[in-house]
């Protein structure tokens, strides 16, 4: 009897988690704010019907960590970023707070990044370093360093719940095309492109991991695997190394172009930063 019940319960649990993945009980509400985790795919991604947040593909336990900021381990780093915001650094004797009243003034910025300014593709990390170097006279932070990830998370958080809407035409078009080319090019000894995993096989298990669409609407993201905030380019680098390819450098033109392209594949999804993944 007992065994029979347990077996039934286990079967029901499996059935439930399968529907939660496939049948759209994938509602993410963070501290009461509703997130868009599925959106109609833009017409420039003909191989996708829907764009789907990486949150949808994670296990229930990992998903739960993103539901309120108290449980979300990223918020330790948000606290650190608030300290950095107020910390005087560099030859001008200034902090971010010396010139910006409130980080909330950057609401919406994350949704349009990367963007082209004066013919150059600019990421959030580029902006942060240019503020440090040009306005504070301080040393730039490493592109994927801890303070950079923390500050990028704090600024991205101001846009949480707003839809991703990067510009891909006009002066952004050549960068977007370059990013698309990288996305579909097979690389490394395993000879795989981003698209082989994240477009052709999302939703399927690759050994212990369920493949997502490789979206970046939740970055920087806290990973249980390394217990820290991870930047977009650090994640790209990891995926390239996994297929035994020589990664491009974080902050390189190639990764920035790829970031623009990947961001555009998530158009309409809510900014979820800082998200939690395994």
């Amino acid at each position, binding site marked *: 009897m007992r065994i029979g019940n347990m077996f039934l319960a286990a079967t029901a649990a499996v059935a439930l988690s399968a529907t939660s993945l496939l049948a759209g009980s994938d509602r993410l509400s963070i501290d009461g704010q509703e997130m868009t985790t599925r959106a109609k795919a833009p017409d420039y991604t003909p191989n996708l019907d829907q764009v789907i947040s990486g949150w949808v593909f994670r296990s229930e336990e990992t998903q739960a960590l993103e539901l309120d900021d108290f449980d979300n381990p990223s918020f330790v780093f948000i606290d650190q970023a608030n300290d950095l915001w107020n910390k005087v650094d560099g030859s001008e004797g200034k902090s971010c707070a010396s010139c910006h009243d409130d980080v909330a003034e950057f609401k919406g910025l994350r949704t349009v990044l990367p963007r082209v300014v004066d013919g150059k593709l600019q990421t959030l990390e580029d902006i942060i370093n240019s503020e440090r170097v040009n306005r504070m006279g301080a040393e730039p932070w490493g592109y994927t360093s801890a303070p950079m990830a923390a500050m990028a998370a704090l600024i991205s958080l101001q846009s949480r719940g707003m839809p991703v809407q990067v510009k891909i035409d006009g002066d952004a078009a050549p960068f977007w095309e370059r990013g698309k080319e990288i996305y579909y*090019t*097979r*690389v*490394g*000894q*395993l*000879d*795989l492109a981003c698209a*082989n*995993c994240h477009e*052709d*096989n999302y939703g*399927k*298990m*690759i*050994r*212990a991991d369920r493949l997502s669409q490789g979206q970046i609407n939740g970055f920087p993201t806290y990973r249980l695997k390394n217990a820290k905030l991870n930047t977009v380019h650090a994640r790209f680098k990891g995926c*390239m*190394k996994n297929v*035994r*390819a*020589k990664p491009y450098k974080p902050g390189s033109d190639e990764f920035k172009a790829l970031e623009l392209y990947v961001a555009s594949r998530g158009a309409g999804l809510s900014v979820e930063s800082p998200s939690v993944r395994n």
Partner: protein
Amino acid sequence: MKRTSVLLAAAVLATAAQAAETSPGDVVFDNGAVSRSLTGVPGDPANGRKVFMNRKKGNCLACHANADMHDQLFHGEIGPTLDGVAGRYSEAELRGLLVNSKNTYEDTIMPAFYRADGFKRPLDKFKGKTILTAQEVEDVVAYLMTLK
């Protein structure tokens, strides 16, 4: 004097071993299949089973389920299950699939396990190298042949 001849003997032996082994560029395909053994040494199915599981070698479980390895917690879902695969393919076809499955399934996601060049941006430590050695390919083929 003595040392030199030992060295020479070793060199001769090494060349002999290499001559018996087909290098990746010389593998002859017939419709995706490779009928000739890559080494001439019969494959060891027990080692083939290990190579199949090992994440740094075949890592076949990343993409394929295999009931023979039910003790392993995680099986991928990207390729077909390999249960009974020996009934679906001949030994030569399986060898061909392992050496370079793109000759059987164009555009497949399955990596070529015995191909050394033609890759874009390979990491330096894998440059010019195959994922599996010739004997490991033979061992995995021998293992797959046990999946009846």
